[in-house]
């Protein structure tokens, strides 16, 4: 099992990370040397046009995909030293996921869905559901703990998914377009809850999003383009341009 308890200032450190799919003429360079850092206690946004490599990057960072080249350290662990089996255990213990389409198990109640990561970790079912209900109450869903996903609104489903991502207290939370399937008000609620409940000094949160209306929640925004990080903007106003020709002001405006 990977020991990811060692505290480092950087939760995620990517240096020249590359990832390609296929071979020969079908080869696609999804990541073309990504330099990307995520600090503990921060809500880091990853933005950019469709197909620029955002999802591939968070998949690599979350241990869902192997990188092709480059150095990658997540929660103090060099991922190139981790076997496939340990990568699964690493995800189980250290990573929480929020998906665009929620990916809740339709046959499970909200509380049971939230309890799934605990069940995977071997927690006894009764205790897992109890802890799940407590967390759902914190997220304002105490009255819907026994509801099936199909009876919940989109915003409620995403709050359940958020609770599922947090229930086992992971040190890294990865969110893929968490507000894309929601109306503005529901998106705001989800982001508010994410910022309130997920951000923690010992946890890093990465959010992939196209939704510029929620940029103001970010501590930093990394903009990707063509498989590379083009620019990183921080809430303190500093901007680090990796590719000056691709610089945009929209992210800086979000912090103004």
């Amino acid at each position, binding site marked *: 099992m990977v020991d990811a308890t060692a505290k480092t200032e950087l939760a995620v450190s990517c240096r020249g990370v590359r990832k390609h799919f296929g071979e020969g003429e079908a080869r696609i360079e999804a990541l073309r040397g990504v330099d990307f850092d995520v600090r503990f206690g921060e809500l880091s946004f990853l933005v950019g046009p469709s197909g620029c490599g955002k999802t591939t990057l968070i*998949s690599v960072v979350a241990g*869902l995909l192997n990188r092709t080249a480059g150095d990658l350290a997540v929660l103090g662990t060099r991922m190139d030293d981790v076997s496939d089996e340990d990568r699964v255990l690493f995800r189980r213990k250290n990573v929480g*996921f929020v998906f665009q*389409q929620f*990916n809740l*198990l339709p*046959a499970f109640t909200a509380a049971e869905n939230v309890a799934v990561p605990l069940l*995977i970790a071997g927690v006894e079912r009764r205790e897992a559901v109890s802890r799940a209900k407590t967390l759902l109450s914190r997220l304002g869903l105490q009255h819907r703990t026994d509801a099936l996903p199909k009876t919940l609104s989109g915003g409620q489903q995403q709050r359940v998914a958020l609770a599922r991502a947090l229930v086992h207290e992971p040190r890294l939370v990865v969110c893929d377009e968490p507000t894309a399937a929601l109306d503005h008000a529901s998106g705001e609620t989800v982001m508010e809850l994410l910022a309130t409940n997920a951000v923690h000094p010992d946890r890093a949160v990465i959010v992939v999003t196209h939704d510029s209306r929620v940029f103001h929640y970010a501590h930093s925004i990394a903009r990707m383009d063509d498989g590379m990080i083009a620019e990183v903007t921080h809430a303190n106003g500093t901007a680090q341009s990796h590719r000056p020709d691709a610089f945009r002001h929209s992210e800086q405006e979000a912090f103004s």
Partner: protein
Amino acid sequence: MNFVALRMLTGDRAKYFGLVFAIAFCTFLLENQTSIFANILRRTASQILDVTDAEVWVMDPQTEYWEQTKALKDTDLTRVRGVPGVEWAVRLFKGNPVARTLKGKFAVSFLVGLDDATLAGAPRRMLMGSWERLREPDSVVVDQAGYELLFPDEPLELGRILEMNDHRVTIVGISDASAPFASLPVMHARYSEAVNFLGRERTELSFIIGRPGPGISPKALTARIEAQTGLRARTTEEFMWDCVNYYLKHTGIPVNFGITIAVALVVGTVVAGQTFYLFTVENLKQFGALKAMGVTNPRLVGMILLQAGSVSALGFAMGTGMAATFFEITLHKMATRGIVLMWQSVALTGACILFVVVVASVLSIRRVLVLEPAEVFRG
């Protein structure tokens, strides 16, 4: 995680019940057809199996099965009795006379002539009367189904009269002889009378039945009889299989039942196997999410096998229950009496269902194992 696997399985009620009932009906069809097939073939040897007091059958070398006999010479009985190891041996006659009631109802019958002195070879149980009454002149014991065929809608009653080959014969007993392959009355009489009920021929000795003495097996005795007499000798079980194999080889029964069983198997395989396969494939997104959250491949395999095992066990149990109910109902009908759900059919069907579900599981497991957990980000 067993809870997660089972809840995923039962969560979609329509798919779940579809799966269970597909397996249940496949089980029912397979158990039903294979049991009927086996029981019908077993009926070809009913009159052999009814003879419980003998273990060895001796016949002309040309005799292949119960229905087709070539008479032995009376001296053959003496020769068989002279073989060392034969505890006793008696004659048995088999013929097919026409029995006619006073009302004119008639039917070709199986007539079995029992040794006059011992009455060896009589079936197991009497429903009315007694075997000893066969010692009365012109007497016959008829089975219940034969009685109801000759005297429809009339109560069972002793003393009724039949006419066979110009002989006035009295029914002195009603037996529960096993149903023969053809739905004909089964009658028993003393040997000396049975040959007269059919019409005298030069030779009438159909079979010699006997039992080995202490220290020698029926199988060893048959070999010894064949070696010393040149006649054909079979144990009861061997003779039963001779009859079964004859019908398997020379009739269309196995082809007809084989087609039905094959269709049941194919349809069951397609429906149950494909339904389970599709069930897993349709849940790939859920399995992908579980993989992303840290469920290992061996655990996923265990979950799918648990789903397959539980759904097939439930479907198989329901199907077997349906088959048992079916046979319980038909067992009490005269035409289908003695046709029961055979444990061999249950075991064979269980193996088939297990095979089908395992194949479907393996195919679907493969899809889950090659699934990249990153797929969950692709919506």
